[in-house]
């Protein structure tokens, strides 16, 4: 049931967003991956998921913010249909609890990855205006440091902010583009800052690719 409704939602999103997909120095693969992308619209994870080959979709789980996606229709879409992992956002939590919350989030992501799954994450943590890719939160670095065997694939989503920007309910059918880039190749001694800079650059580079 949930797989079918996810496919239906994805098909609608594809009609609405008309995504053109490019794989630059990267091919679809059943290897475990973390797709990390810029974030401008609620449509982002649906469109990214929908352009993956069908055989990969069932094992690819979006990571979404718990404060937004955990009730009513949103929950039905995110959790029931797409099997999303809902996580707390650091800036929505009181200062003292942040460390514990971050640990808990990381554990959830590691569990969601497991031995077979892939994840879709938006390391900016919030939707931007589509002009500039905001700074990345550190969660993706900690995820990599625990699971360096997983491929981290940068994705640039363009025009989705024009379809359903922050603060709008009604969509406008603009043609969007999804560009997948080559998996990151971090050095073994990567620091948090250098890893995040590398990841950020990889996404930005796809904007002009």
């Amino acid at each position: 049931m949930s797989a079918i409704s996810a496919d239906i939602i994805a098909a609608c999103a594809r009609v609405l967003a008309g995504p053109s997909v490019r794989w630059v120095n990267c091919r679809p693969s059943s290897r475990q991956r973390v797709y990390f992308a810029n974030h401008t619209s609620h449509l982002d994870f649906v469109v990214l998921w929908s352009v993956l080959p069908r055989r990969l979709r069932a094992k690819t789980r979006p990571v979404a913010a718990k404060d937004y996606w955990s009730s009513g229709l949103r929950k039905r879409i995110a959790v029931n249909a797409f099997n999303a992992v809902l996580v707390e956002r650091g800036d929505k939590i009181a200062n003292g609890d942040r460390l514990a919350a971050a640990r808990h989030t990381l554990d959830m992501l590691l569990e969601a990855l497991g031995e077979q799954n892939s994840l879709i994450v938006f390391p900016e943590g919030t939707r931007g205006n589509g002009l500039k890719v905001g700074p990345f939160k550190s969660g993706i670095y900690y995820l990599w440091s625990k699971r360096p065997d997983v491929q981290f694939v940068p994705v640039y989503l363009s025009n989705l902010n024009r379809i359903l920007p922050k603060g709008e309910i009604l969509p406008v059918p603009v043609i969007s583009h999804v560009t997948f880039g080559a998996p990151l190749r971090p050095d073994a001694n990567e620091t948090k800052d250098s890893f995040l800079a590398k990841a950020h650059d990889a996404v930005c580079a796809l904007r002009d690719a």
Partner: protein
Amino acid sequence: MNFKLDHQMFLILNVVIGGLVAASVVGYILSRRVKSDDQRATIDNLNARIRAWWIMIGIFSISFLIGPAGSMVLFAFISLLALREYISLISTARADHRTLFWSFFVFTPLQYWFWYEGWYGLAIILIPVYGFLFIPIRLALAGETTGFLDRAARIQWGLMVCVYCISYAPALLTLNIPGYQKQDAKLLLYLVIVVQLSDIFQYIWGKLLGKRKIAPAISPNKTWEGFIGGIATAVALGTALWWMTPFTPLLALCLSLAAALMGFAGGLTMSAIKRDRGVKDFGNTIEGHGGILDRMDSICFSAPLFFHLTRWFFVTHPTWLR
């Protein structure tokens, strides 16, 4: 507005399909003969275009056979897709969002609904008058002043070209020409055939003989040889098809010439936009052709003139021809 599949319509659809079969055979033979990579690319593109023509003619014929509602719905969708390609290519601002929503989902359906109901007076002023006024009002309400006139003009222009102008093609079904009742569908088919043949023969003559560029600053592919050969061929075929229209052969010649010239002007104008935006095509919806708007640019510009000339001579001033 009425519809009947008469023997002329049947005949012309068969001729079109026959022509397509011939094109496919030629394309196949050419693909067996190519030697250089350069030729290979051209012939592959030619064959992609011919394959796409099969699909386009298939969709067009089905909507045609459904009747006027089918044609209206088809062209309404074409308008939506064309407007989408246009809006995607030009830049719009965040504050334009709701105005764009109105353009796509209110003005476009209304335009085609008015034509479908045969409300000529409303259909011809909806976008040029009320859309024209509504768009800047809605943008002003959104409260963003940066590039205001620019943004309003872009949206107005898109609605005019992609919705208003294209809608004149199925509007031919509403003409109700005395002595030609229930046959209007052939007029739409005639316009599409003449204008598309003009495009196709401009491409063919340009590839075969093209040397002197007609507008080097806008399009490197448009040549004088292609222009003259394409228009002449389309006008000759348009004149030869006078029997499917209410026109005399002479009038068929004049109207196909007007349609083909406007079609060329449409291609040129839309190329100027693409050039300005630094792209070759509006999209990649139709294999080998580019986007919907790349295929419709000539219809956008020729349909309004063809509609109004036909209406003038056959509906409002029929005595002029006697």
